[in-house]
């Protein structure tokens, strides 16, 4: 199996935002969303994608 972590919690950026990378796709989150994803990071990837996409939609 591929040992590359499918989710990478990059952490806080200079602009105060947080970056999470899933399957190579970065998601720009606020602190609450970052904490929520951190809590969910053991969920199946199908759920994580939905949550990250939902947060991304919220941030639009």
């Amino acid at each position, binding site marked *: 199996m591929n040992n590359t972590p499918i989710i990478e919690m990059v952490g806080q950026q200079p602009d105060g935002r947080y970056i999470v990378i899933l399957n190579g796709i970065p998601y720009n989150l606020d602190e609450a969303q970052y904490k929520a994803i951190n809590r969910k990071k053991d969920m199946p990837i199908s*759920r994580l994608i939905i*949550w990250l996409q*939902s947060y991304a939609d919220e941030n639009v």
Partner: protein
Amino acid sequence: MGRKKGPNIGKALNSIFKTMGKMARAAAAAEKKRQREAIREENRRINTINRLAAQHEREMNRFYAQAERERVRRIKQEEMAEKRAAREQAKALRDEERERVKAAKLQAKLEKQQQIEDEIAEIESENNNWTNAHRLIDHIDLVEEVTTILEKCNTEQQDIDAENTMFDKPKPTKYDAENQAQAEARNIYDTWNAQIELKQAEERFRRFVDFNVPEPSTDISDFNVPEPTRGQAYAMLVKEAESKISTFFPWKQNRLRKEYVSERLNSFFDNIHDEWEKLKAEYENHKLQVHADWEKEKSEYEVLKTNANDELQAKRAQFEKKSKDQAEYIEQRTETILDKSIAKWKDERNDFYSQLRDNLQDNINGDKDFVITAVDDLFPNDDLEMEYFVDIAYDYESSKVFVDLDLPEIEDIPQQKIALTPSGKKSIRQKTQTDLRGDYVNCIFGLAMYVAYNIFNVSVKISEIEISGYTQRKGENSALATDQYVFLVDFTRGVFSEIDFQKFSSLEVMDFFKHHYNMTKTFDLKEIDLSTAYSKMESFTPAEYSEIN
């Protein structure tokens, strides 16, 4: 014989004297005896009187002694009665005080009991609120129902005369408009006051019609004093002469009286006749004056009557004009008001149906923005007193909502419960750890169902709601609390809408859906591992709801 007679007489005399002596002695003896008897009798009487007096004295003494004893006895009785009354009064006061204390104790006991009952009711209610959130679930909307309402909405909107519609504001009627127009007209035309003025004018005129000034000729008779005659004048002068002229000689007196009469008759008659003429003339004048006054009064009355009639006619004309103007105003204004009211009502009705149709359509379509916004507006609400937080993600393609549910803490669960004593009475007890954990499990599962129920009713497109519940707990060797997931459940609309939530505990309801949690027999809910929890949930076989029912 002769001798014999001598001695015999002597003897006889002697014998007589002896006998008389005996008799005298006997009489004396008898007298003595009588005197002795009398003395004895007197003594006996005195003795008897003395005995009776002594007896009477003894009886009197006995009577006084008895009366004294009676008096003393009565005093003692009265004293005893007073003491008894005092004792009874004191006893009554003691009894009253005892009753009062008893009543106060009973009142305090009842209040305490009521307080306990209130406390019990409050605890029961609080526990019920915390552990039975799923009992708030009522009806789950179905696609068919929403579609039917949408069709009904379209049909009703087209048919403006439809009855028993969802838009329940009644269509304005001509009656309502007329009432409004009448209210306005009353303020403008004031026919009420005009009517009152007309009534008053009618009343005034009626008084003139009903009244006539009485003709005086019926009250004043003709002059009825008789005209004086010379004969009457002569008679009057004769009487006057009789009273004035009196002389010793009758012949002279008659002559003087005749002279007195004849000298004065003509002038006297003329005087009284003139007086009569004058009186008659005054009377006739007075009669003419009365008639003239009556004529004047009558003409004044006629003027007043005419004025009253003129006023009546004026008021009547005024009232009739106002009434006519008002009627015309009401007729025109009613039409205007009715048109405006109906136009406004139609606008409101169209807005209502448009809004309803949009809502129903949104409900059916279940667009992403609509669902997210609607759910954000739903939580938190005041239905539940527990603290929780709902975060959702919505996958439109699969019609599935994902809920990340921040649960209340076990420490927030009410600490007391109501238990039944062996005698069947309710009593307040502290919950055991098992009680608390059992209540907490029912609390969080009930909350999950309550949240799912509200989200299902946002849109009929939502067919599935997957809830992951987490809580904050301290680690075994850490003072810091971390988020720990404790259950996963996947509610499907079909089964969810069939369940009678009043029949089951939330823990029992969980078995009708795919779920995963790790709980001991004593309701200790362990943290679940998300990396394996989903596959475990998927592999769970739910109980068939229809089989149980």
